[in-house]
């Protein structure tokens, strides 16, 4: 009898866990990632424009264009990663992790290819300005964490 009760209890717990893990998450998760990306993208655009003006004031037009190209590269890479997170099937922890790692891989590949294209094709490139814009834009993308902290169920 005791075993039956325990079995029933554990069975109901497992059922509860399955329900929790499958049902509520998808739309809320998409919204959370979208909100986070929007906030991060807003800060990335602000920082990119600010760096562009700074380089325009204190250096040349080519440096400003290079800096803005660095920011745009980080922005496009982040957008490609977010697009990858929209293609998911279920909501288990393992599949979520695989989707996130694929999104990160996509982001890195897109950024590397775009950087390669810029270095090969843009003749008037100012490399330090490009790296500065890229670094600032990538580092400020953590600003989206604030949007995740405002999650409401």
């Amino acid at each position: 009898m005791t075993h039956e009760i325990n079995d029933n209890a554990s069975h109901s717990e497992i059922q509860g866990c399955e329900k929790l893990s499958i049902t509520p998450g998808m739309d809320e998760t998409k919204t959370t990632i979208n909100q986070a990306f929007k906030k991060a993208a807003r800060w990335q655009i602000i920082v990119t424009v600010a760096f562009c003006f700074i380089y325009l004031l204190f250096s040349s037009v080519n440096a400003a264009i290079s800096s803005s190209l660095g920011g745009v590269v980080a922005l496009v890479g982040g957008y490609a990663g977010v697009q990858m997170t929209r293609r998911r099937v279920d909501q288990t922890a393992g599949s979520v992790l695989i989707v996130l790692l694929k999104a990160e891989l996509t982001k890195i590949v897109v950024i590397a290819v775009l950087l390669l294209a810029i270095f090969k094709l843009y003749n008037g490139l100012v490399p330090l300005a490009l790296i500065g814009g890229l670094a600032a834009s990538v580092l400020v993308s953590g600003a989206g964490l604030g949007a995740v902290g405002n999650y409401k169920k």
Partner: protein
Amino acid sequence: METLTLLAQIQAYTGIGIGLIIGLGALGACIGIGIMCSSFLDGAARQPEMIPVLQGKVFLLLGLIDASFIIGVGLAMMFAFANPLLSVIPK
């Protein structure tokens, strides 16, 4: 001839530096991502209802962990395609 030797030396050492930048950056990023993913799986196993909240944070933190690697890749490309160290060679 001496200029050619100097050029070859600079390019060789730059190649080693590029390998170190990308390799060590990838190593650090992989260790960080591994630790974070194991923590995510741990948290998801303990509280499955927190997966949607944790997923957004994991996505952003993946970007932050990879930031140093991406910057390193940019620097490595700068040394590969527009090496500033080559300017010391007299023309």
